[in-house]
């Protein structure tokens, strides 16, 4: 099914689109409300700060549109963090589609940001992660994260354990960048496009 990538005003939109091009799955980047409302699959990408991204969604009048979608939504990296109620990064209110807050990742004695390839753990059976196994590597780059919760579909650990993949009803998120996570990431993007609504 075709995928609509929301133009959040953030800077890494092209790479998600290119990843779907490589899979041969039709995709569009847009900030047009009508196109997003009619989409079968919606991706919310993002790099940068939560405050900037939320402001950008507000300016584009997309907050309510995203909050009322019935089709599967996948937030990527910052896009996943925006799905929650609040982010400690700039103390910003999120879309509130998932319960809980995003807080600074406590990396302990390890470097921060959490940057590089880390393994998925505690994977729950779900369509999004079909064919993905514990210990598969994916590419992370972030300083903030969501705690593990009943919505966690896969976790990862860097100093502390956090949600690497979340999902509830039609709302999904990946803290890592599937578009830059080799075959594992490509499989997740493909699963998202093909999963039952």
């Amino acid at each position, binding site marked *: 099914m075709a995928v609509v990538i929301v133009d959040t005003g953030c800077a890494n939109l092209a790479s998600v689109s290119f990843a779907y091009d490589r899979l041969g799955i039709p995709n569009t980047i847009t900030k047009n409300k009508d196109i997003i409302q009619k989409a079968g699959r919606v991706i919310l990408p993002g790099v940068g700060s939560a405050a900037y991204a939320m402001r950008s969604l507000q300016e584009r009048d997309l907050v309510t549109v995203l909050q009322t979608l019935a089709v599967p939504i996948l937030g990527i990296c910052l896009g996943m963090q925006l799905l929650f109620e609040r982010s400690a990064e700039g103390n910003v209110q999120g879309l509130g589609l998932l319960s809980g807050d995003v807080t600074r990742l406590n990396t302990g004695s390890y*470097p921060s*940001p959490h940057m590089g390839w880390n393994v998925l753990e505690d994977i729950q059976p779900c369509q999004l992660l079909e064919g993905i196994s514990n210990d598969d590597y994916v590419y992370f780059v972030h300083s903030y994260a969501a705690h593990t919760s009943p919505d966690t579909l896969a976790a990862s650990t860097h100093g502390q354990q956090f949600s690497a993949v979340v999902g509830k009803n039609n709302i999904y998120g990946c803290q890592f960048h599937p578009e830059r996570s080799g075959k594992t990431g*490509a499989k997740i993007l493909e699963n998202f496009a093909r999963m039952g609504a």
Partner: protein
Amino acid sequence: MLARRIIPCLDVRNGVVVKGVQFRDHEIVGDILELAKRYAEQGADELVFYDITASTDERIVDREWVTQVSALIDIPFCVAGGIKSVEAARVRLEQGADKISINSPALLRPDLINELRDAFGRQCIVVGIDSFFDGKAYRVKSHTGDAGKTRETGRETLDWISEAIERGAGEIVLNCMNNDGVRTGYDLDQLSLARKICSVPLIASGGAGEISHFEDVFNISNVDGALAASVFHKNILPIPTLKTALSNTGIEIRI
């Protein structure tokens, strides 16, 4: 656990990949897209593209190949060279680069680091540092892309690392110039000193020649990633061989 990264570095000059010894005498090693694809398929964890002519020739890197690389590969890559403004950085990120790296422009105007952090977040801002040991101290040099234009900066390396992190660098690539291209091993002493004060990911650059050099820089200097060019370009050390060998010694490596 977070894997240690193996990072081929592609020095780009006039649209092709080149490699010199100690930053001089550049020879052409191949096509940007061909090498990017080959390294990604071989298991590189990330790629870094340095447009080494950019700072010295006062021009920004050519845009087209960044988009082409982004479309082609499914691993992250960083673009460096002549990025002197938030706008220039925005262009690279919009083209699909995952991170941007700044070196000489940050030395000329350190506020650039703060501006980039504010615009895009620390996580995609890399500060590259060319460090030269003059027998007494580790000193930062700038404009190293052309031997004739290289400048002293008056800064000491460890001070500059601390300042760059304070201003918003999300990663430091420390290139030890004395070791660059000579394949006698990374500068473990300098990298270990840098590691002690570097709270963000630290990438070693300069001197890789054999598997034990990578093993040492991870085990002794505790860096997050190791960058190398000639050993990969000349196929002295194929990436799969390197990664399997490192993994077999117990180092966390993505195979």
